[in-house]
C-alpha cells in the first residue's frame, strides 16, 4: 500500500514543481478537448435543434442513429479516424495522422452525437408551438430556433458539459490517432496510461490528479453558471 501513498505524495510534489513536461501535456489536453468540444457544439446544437422542431421523413431513424452515436466506443472511433487519415486512407492528403488536428477530428466524432442528442432532447422538452409562435411573430427559421435555444439554455449547457466530459477523459481514440508522441500529441489520458505501464506511478498519479482537477474545475464553472441562471429564473 505504501507505493500508493508514496506515489500520491510524489505526484503532488510534481504538480507543485510545475514540471514543464507535465505543463505541456496539460496544455495539449486542454487544446484538443476544448477545441473539439467547441466544434461539436457548433455542429450538435443547431443540428439537434433542427431535428427536434422539423418534421421530415425517417425522423425517428435519424434520432435513433444519433442516440446510438452517444454510445460510440472511442477506440472504434479512433480506429476509423486512423484508417481514414492513414497514408492509404481517403483523407491522407490532410496529413493529420499523429497530429492534434487528427485528435480533434476523432474527439469531435465522439462529442458531436452526445451534444446533438442532448440538445435535441432539450428542444423537444419545449412545446413545439413555442417555435411556431416565433415563426408567426415574423421570425425566420434561424431566428426562431435561436429564441427556442435561449429558452432551454440550461439544458444546452448540460449538453456542453456532457460533451466536454466525454472527450477530456477519453483515451482510446486520441491514443490511436495521436500516437502519444512526446511534445506533440501526448495528452493527460495517454500520458497516464503510458506512465502506469512504465511503472512510474508517481507521475501517473500526478497526471490523474491534474485530469481530475481540470474536469472538476471546468464542470464546476459550467455548473455554477447553469445553477445561477436556474436560480434567476
Amino acid at each position, binding site marked *: 500500500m505504501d507505493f500508493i501513498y508514496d506515489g500520491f505524495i510524489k505526484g503532488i510534489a510534481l504538480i507543485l514543481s510545475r514540471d514543464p513536461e507535465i505543463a505541456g501535456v496539460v496544455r495539449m489536453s486542454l487544446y484538443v478537448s476544448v477545441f473539439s468540444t467547441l466544434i461539436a457544439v457548433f455542429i450538435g446544437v443547431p443540428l439537434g435543434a433542427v431535428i427536434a422542431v422539423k418534421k421530415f421523413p425517417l425522423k425517428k431513424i435519424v434520432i435513433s442513429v444519433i442516440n446510438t452515436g452517444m454510445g460510440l466506443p472511442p477506440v472504434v472511433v479512433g480506429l476509423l479516424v486512423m484508417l481514414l487519415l492513414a497514408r492509404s486512407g481517403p483523407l491522407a492528403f490532410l496529413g493529420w495522422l499523429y497530429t492534434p488536428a487528427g485528435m480533434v477530428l476523432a474527439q469531435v466524432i465522439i462529442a458531436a452525437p452526445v451534444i446533438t442528442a442532448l440538445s435535441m432532447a432539450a428542444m423537444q422538452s419545449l412545446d413545439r408551438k413555442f417555435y*411556431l409562435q416565433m415563426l*408567426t*411573430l415574423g421570425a*425566420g427559421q434561424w*431566428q426562431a430556433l435561436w429564441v427556442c435555444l435561449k429558452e432551454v439554455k440550461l439544458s444546452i449547457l448540460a449538453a456542453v458539459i456532457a460533451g466536454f466530459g466525454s472527450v477530456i477523459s477519453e483515451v482510446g481514440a486520441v491514443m490511436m490517432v495521436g500516437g502519444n508522441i512526446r511534445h506533440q500529441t501526448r495528452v493527460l489520458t495517454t500520458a497516464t496510461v503510458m506512465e502506469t505501464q512504465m511503472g512510474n506511478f508517481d507521475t501517473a498519479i500526478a497526471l490523474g490528479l491534474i485530469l481530475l482537477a481540470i474536469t472538476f474545475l471546468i464542470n464546476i464553472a459550467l455548473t455554477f453558471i447553469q445553477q445561477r441562471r436556474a436560480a434567476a429564473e
Partner: protein
Amino acid sequence: MITLSGLVIELSTGFSLRVDGLRVKKGETFALIGPNGAGKTTLLNALALLQEIKAGELKIGGKDALRKAHRLELRRSMSYLFSRPYLAGGSVYENIVLPLKFRGVKDSGQAAEMLELFKIAHLRDRDSRQLSQGERHRVSLARAFVTRPKLVLLDEPFSSLDARAKESIIADLSKITKARRTTLVLVTQDQEEALALADTLAVLKGGRLLQSATPQEIFSRPASEEVADFVGVETVVPGEVTAKSDNLCSVRAGENTLEVISACAPGDKVLVCVRPEAVSVSWTVEASSVRNHFRGKVLAAVPRRLEYEVSIDCGFRIIAAMTRQSVEGMRLKPGDEVYASFKATAAHLIKR
C-alpha cells in the same frame, strides 16, 4: 384580404379538411365556429402558413401564399395568437419588442404605445414568468399588434380566462382592430364571443365548411340541419310544403300544419327550424299576428344559464326559452297543457 379555393389538407391522423371557397374581406372580423375536431385550427394554421396544403389556392393580400418565396413576407404582415400565450423568457418589454427585432426594426415608441393600449404599462419590466394568465394574454396581444399587422389570427384566444377578464380584453381588442381596420380571423367555440366580435361567421364540421354568412343569417337561417343544431336551433321539424301563398308556405308535419315565410315551393321536403327564443308559451291563444299556435303538453322545464328551457310535445317537440319569472308566474310544471306559438317570420325552412 384572404381568398381561398379548392383547399385540401390531409393530416397524418387521417383527418382531411376540404374547403371549396372562402373570402375574408379587408378589415372584417371573421369567426370560424364548429364543434371539436371540425378543422377550425387546421384551417387557421393554413392561413398562418404553418400547415402543409395538399391542393388548392390561397391568396393573402393578393399574394400567392403557397409560394415559399412569399412565406416570410406574408408572415411578417400578420400575427397569430394561440389559445395559450407563448411568452419568451425575459421581461414584458423584451417580449413585446421581439417581433420588431425579428424584422430588424428599432423600437421607436411602438412598444410603449402597446403597453398603454393594453393597460400593461405597469408590467413593463416584470419577468414574463411572473405574470397571471390574464396578464400573459394582454402581453401576447400587445406583442401581436406591435408591428401593426394587417391580419391577426386568433385560435380560441381567451378560452382560459374568466368571463370578466375576457370581456375586458375583447373590448380592447375590438377597439384596436376597428381603429386600425385590422382583419381578424378568429376560431372559437363560444357562440357569444363569435356574435360579439364577428362580422362574418363560418361553420365548420368534420373538415367541411357548412355555411359562411353574417351571424344573424347563420343563427336565424341555418343552411343545414347540422348548422342549425350547432347554432342552437333546437326545434327542427321535418315536413313537406303543401301550399304557398305569396311567400307564406304551409308545411305539413304529421298532424300539424306550420306556416313559415320561405322561398320554398309546394312539394319541397323541408326542415322547419325555430329558435327557442322565438317561441312563446301561454295558457290560451291570444288574438295577434302570430300564425303558429300548437297545443301541447309540457315535458320539462330545465333551468339554463340565464333562462329556462321548456320542452313541449305538440305532436312534434318544440323548445321554448322562458325567463325564470315567466316560468314561476305561470307555475309551469310537466304535464300542463299549454300553447306554443311563433311567428311565420321567426321560423326558417331548410330543404332536405
